């Protein structure tokens, strides 16, 4: 009788550990997927800000057509980019184009004093931050997921239900770097 109770308790404990570990892994895996989509959300936000910026600058520096067009073009390329490598490259070009746009703005005191321009500049800087932070959060999530995946007892469960190790986001340092805004 006592023996049966002990066996029952152990079985119950094992089942409980099993359920908790499995659920924990699922939760972490979902967090990674969410973190990944968060990066896209922030990139899209950046694309959305650029037309406003171009319009504002146009009002003050209409004859800087070449710079404005290169920004618009770089944005379109980044949106249409396929695959992570091409995307990183396009993002890099876009960052460069924005950099030269802000450099051009230096020559226009009226533009620099424009409240709309200043707030767009702030928005763009913080969006760059957000892209970086979203990638950081993604990597943090991958780290804690992989840690759990490879330690006992979750590695057994992971093997049974084919939870795969996830890859870190490792961007080209140029592409992931912030836009340099010269003041």
């Amino acid at each position, binding site marked *: 009788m006592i023996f049966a109770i002990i066996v029952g308790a152990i079985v119950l404990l094992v089942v409980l550990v099993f359920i908790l570990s499995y659920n924990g892994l699922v939760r972490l895996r979902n*967090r990674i997927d969410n*973190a990944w989509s*968060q990066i896209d959300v*922030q990139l899209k936000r950046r694309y959305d800000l650029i037309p406003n910026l171009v319009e504002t600058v146009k009002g003050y520096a209409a004859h800087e057509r070449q710079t404005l067009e290169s920004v618009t073009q770089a944005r379109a390329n980044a949106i249409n980019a396929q695959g992570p490598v091409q995307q990183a490259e396009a993002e890099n070009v876009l960052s460069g184009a924005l950099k030269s746009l802000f450099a051009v703005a230096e020559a226009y005191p009226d533009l620099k004093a424009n*409240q709309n321009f200043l*707030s767009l500049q*702030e*928005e763009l*800087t*913080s969006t760059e*931050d*957000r892209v970086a*932070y*979203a990638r*950081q*959060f993604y990597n*943090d*999530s991958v780290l804690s997921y992989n840690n759990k995946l490879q330690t006992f007892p979750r590695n057994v469960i992971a093997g049974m239900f084919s939870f795969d190790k996830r890859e870190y986001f490792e961007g080209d340092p140029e592409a992931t770097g912030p836009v340099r805004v010269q003041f």
Partner: protein
Amino acid sequence: MYEQISKNKRKTFFLLFFFVALIAGVALAFNFLLGFGAIGVAVAIVFAIAMAWGSYFYSDRVALAASRAKPAEGPEYQRYHNLVEGLCIAAGLPKPRLYVVDDPAPNAFATGRNPKHAALAVTTGLLEKMNRVELEGVIAHELSHVKNYDILVTTVAVTAVGAIALLSDLGLRFMWFGGGDRRDRADSGNLGIILVILAFALLILAPFIALLMQFAVSRRRELLADASGVQLTRYPPGLIAALEKLKDDKAVVHHATRATAQMWIESPLERGPAGSGSEDAVDAEDGDGQKKGSWLNRAFDTHPPLDERIRILKEM
């Protein structure tokens, strides 16, 4: 750093356990001295629970109101909002409600009961004096308080200290006015006398023990929030520069008292051995007349010295 977080969680658990034990001890002593029996203990416990419940749901509103914080609305706070949103993405937290305290002294605090019901407040002085990177360091520190559930522990600690102080105060008052049948107990031999003395001592000392524990929790948590704040920004120089600026700034926050001191990123009260201080400092101190720089005052500090915090950050 991850180990530091889990170690801190364990320590917090033990401290909370001590708080509960202390409350139970005070309730027992109360009962023993006054002989109210089970009803007295039940009333005390119900009262303590009611207080805990109230503070759990309303402490953030009280803290914000006590500091005269108003919601951060308008274009001048855009950078503040943007920085918080960015860091929330990094931390995987929902965005807290943001408040501003109109005060030239640079400082900030977080309050609430969990990440979903959290609020962040900064002084206008902080927004003016800090550049973007420094401000980010400070906000990351505050968000770490939210993420580590320090805001809840602070709330619990404040409530526990309040409940203990109230209970022992009540007990002592009843004793002076000759309530209860303690004399019968005291007459029942040596053991009875010793127990009465012990219970009496516990009632007197409990509030002080509780306060000391509260401050120990607070100091430890500041260091942890520095560490995990830097883990968010991945840029220690930002927070270091901010703390250096706080060190150089001698202003004190007007609407801060010892009760709310532990919430802020830097102790809002005047510090340093030059005790006498300005009128503001006396006002903020709420006239508790502590002598600065003594070991006793160090034990009552809510924050570790800024120099120590800067040194630890530089070692990371």
